[in-house]
């Protein structure tokens, strides 16, 4: 082990690593703002567009409408049907992806420099003038219904559904945004048109581009692409309640393993203690092999293949959530270990060595994220949506390094609350008693 002490010493003098990306802010003549990282080396551009609100804007009587709408938006526009649209896109070697989650609708596009204008025009037609042909709505509806049936037999989905139901009361976060078989069956073409109008609007757009495009080129492109959308959309939902209580929920499911999700309330992204909380969670439940839960549950005891915990930040709620699976016979032992580690970090905090090592990990791994145009565009939009400024990548590591041992001790007590942990166990666990 001696040879690596020398290496560590040398590294102590290595220059601090900062994310080297240079973010420009571009405002189009029509008033749409975007962040841009120019990377002229490869002749294509990645463009990421998000609309705040996502599937939480569903009319409760039409749950699943926004999800189905997003999945159907690429199925034709004007004189192009599904086939025609896909062929036109593929002939340009462009790729467009449309996604919806509880907080956003996202459009991820990549297109070559050589036919950028044609690709943008095709994308514009899909975004602003989707056909929602009855045939396409029905076909995609069939796919969504298959997903809904499939989710009903997927232990991971069953566990996270059960947790959301327990946590979020009557907020949209509490229910599946695919909708139910019944609600999706009842959706009409008019519902698609209404869902489109309510969600993809100019008052909630966030845009970023990375790649072979300049600021003067990007501005007019944004107006061309997005200028035809309606000005305003449906009202955003308010804060979600946090109804989780400590205890154990068991859902019967056949198989050799139990899948477990455990959670309690988390911490807001703009909380002054967020960075201390991030360090603490990384020490306890980071996905790395040296994190405490990974060490205790996997490395020392062999009870699972993988375990981690995450500070999850939705627009309207925060949770600290962990997940693992373990044989039905050993899942109870794993839960006991987690409870014990949760209590321990709350009471004792972490060591100086853990604080230092985790800071090095978090600051060292940060620049590794910015690896490719698509990823960079996606990170940039995410930053805008949580209210960060364009210089954040240059200052973020300083914020991590500023966290003190005192901060960590104080925040550990506040963040980890062993008595509030709710475990949802999907499987046929032995010796695990449901508390409700």
């Amino acid at each position, binding site marked *: 082990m001696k040879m690596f002490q020398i290496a560590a010493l040398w590294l102590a003098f290595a*220059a601090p690593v900062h994310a080297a*990306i240079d973010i420009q802010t571009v405002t189009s003549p029509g008033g749409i703002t975007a962040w841009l990282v120019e990377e002229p*080396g490869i002749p294509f551009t990645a463009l990421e567009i998000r609309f705040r609100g996502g599937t939480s804007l569903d009319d409760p009587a039409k749950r699943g409408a926004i999800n189905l709408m997003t999945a159907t938006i690429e199925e034709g526009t004007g004189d192009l049907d599904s086939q025609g649209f896909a062929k036109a896109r593929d002939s340009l070697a462009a790729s467009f992806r449309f996604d919806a989650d509880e907080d956003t609708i996202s459009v991820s596009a990549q297109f070559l420099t050589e036919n950028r204008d044609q690709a943008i025009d095709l994308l514009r037609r899909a975004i602003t003038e989707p056909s929602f042909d009855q045939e396409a709505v029905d076909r995609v509806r069939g796919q*969504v219904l298959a997903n809904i049936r499939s989710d009903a037999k997927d232990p991971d989905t069953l566990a996270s559904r059960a947790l959301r139901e327990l946590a979020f009361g009557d907020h949209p976060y509490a229910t599946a945004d695919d909708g139910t078989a019944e609600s999706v069956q009842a959706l009409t073409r008019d519902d698609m048109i209404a869902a489109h109008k309510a969600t993809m609007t100019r008052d909630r757009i966030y845009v970023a581009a990375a790649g072979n495009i300049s600021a003067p080129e990007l501005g007019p492109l944004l107006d061309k692409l997005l200028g035809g959308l309606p000005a305003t959309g449906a009202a955003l939902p308010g804060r979600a309640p946090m109804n989780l209580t400590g205890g154990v929920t068991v859902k019967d499911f056949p198989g050799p393993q139990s899948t477990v999700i455990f959670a309690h309330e988390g911490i807001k992204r703009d909380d002054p203690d967020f960075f201390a909380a991030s360090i603490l969670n990384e020490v306890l439940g980071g996905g790395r092999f040296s994190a405490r839960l990974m060490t205790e549950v996997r490395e020392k005891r062999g009870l699972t293949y993988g375990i981690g915990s995450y500070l999850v930040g939705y627009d309207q709620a925060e949770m600290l959530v962990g997940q693992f699976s373990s044989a039905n016979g050993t899942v109870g032992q794993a839960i006991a270990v987690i409870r014990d580690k949760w209590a321990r970090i709350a009471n004792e905090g972490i060591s100086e060595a853990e604080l230092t090592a985790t800071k090095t990990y978090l600051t060292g791994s940060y620049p590794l994220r910015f690896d490719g*145009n698509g990823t960079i565009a996606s990170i940039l939009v995410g930053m805008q949506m949580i209210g960060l400024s364009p210089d954040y990548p240059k200052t973020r590591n300083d914020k991590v390094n500023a966290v003190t041992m005192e901060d960590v001790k104080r925040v550990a007590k506040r963040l980890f609350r062993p008595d509030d942990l709710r475990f949802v166990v999907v499987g046929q666990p032995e010796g695990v008693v449901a508390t409700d």
Partner: protein
Amino acid sequence: MSHRALWAATCLAALSGPALADDVTTFQLQNGMDVVVIEDHRAPVVTQMVWYRTGAADETAGHSGIAHFLEHLMFKGTDDLAPGEFSATVEAQGGDDNAFTSWDYTAYFQRIAADRLDLMMKMEADRMRDLQLLEDDVLTERNVIIEERKSRTDSNPGALLNEQMRAAQFMNHRYGIPIIGWKHEIEQLDRQDAFDFYNRYYAPNNAILVVAGDVTPDAVRAMAETHYGPLQPSADIAPRTRPSEPPQLAERRLTYRDTRVSEPYVTRSYIAPERDPGDQADAAALTILAELLGGSGTTSLFARALQFGPAPKAVYSTAYYDGTSVDDATFGMLVVPMPDVPMEEAEAAMDAVVAKFLETGPDAEDFARMKTQIRASEIYARDNVEGLARKYGEALAVGLTLEDIKGWTAALDAVTPEQVTEVARKVLNRDRAVTGWLLPKEEPAQ
């Protein structure tokens, strides 16, 4: 709409080409270790990968899973590193590391700030020859891989069907045995099995170093010579001659029922030629055949025939082929019928699409569109330097040459419609295939 797909759709990844030739440098150390350097100076980041030319198909009978088990145990310490210290050191430098095992190769990688490459090489070279294992660590890790098998395979009816189908497809070749191993054999693996496999296969002359990112070939060469250079090559790396398959004389079919199935499906797997050094024309044609048949959820032949129209037969359909292997590969297809369509009918409809294609060959317009995408894929591929590192490592590990790798896009581009038809007629023969049905099983009465 690809994000609505139930199963990971095959994407254009198979079509994407390597980096431009001038970004890639290769050389060999004196002890026989191959080195590939892929330069990408956009960010101060580097990926180091070490690929061993050995995997699950090199295991001896009765020891299935040992290649993968050893991969886990490689993190358990050396004469210089305590158990877990390898990953802890990578993480303490802000990097990430992991490893993966296939039938033909085992690979280890770290992704880290470019100025820390030297330390990564020092550690990776250390564990190539100086692994040390404590009995207790081996037994605990065996439980981890048993849990891994439960998560990946035993909890997943589709994975269980797939395992049964491969076992039916390969009667003699070890491609028929799951990489993770059969459960009853994993339970018997021990420390000695791991060392036997390690000593037989882990040596510089059976390894490929791929370094990709913000590095120069000269710097990599100097570091590699310092750290890997002194390692002794092994004198007895056996040639990769695996038992070959007897001729398949009859169609093979099986049905797997499981209470956890929600969407039944039919899937077919045909024996197909792989990429051979200096001869990858058939593999290129098969790659394009898979794209034409099932690559797109909208415009592929399967999608158009089965998912569109007034009475669609299927919710989802796909076809896939990956020819990067040492021995014969497989060509696969899968159809998830609409809820009211019986499995027989779905399979007949799938076969009708195949039969029609064998008669008529590719549509000229479809073919032209695919060629456009192939040429563009070379541009998009350059954005993902880790993907490039994997392509080089994987291809070299299965015995392909640098010329094969650099020529892959050209090979795809050179494929003619006639070649696709010809290779389809040769490969898509049910007498050389396994057909599987995945069906739900009624819950037993409580």
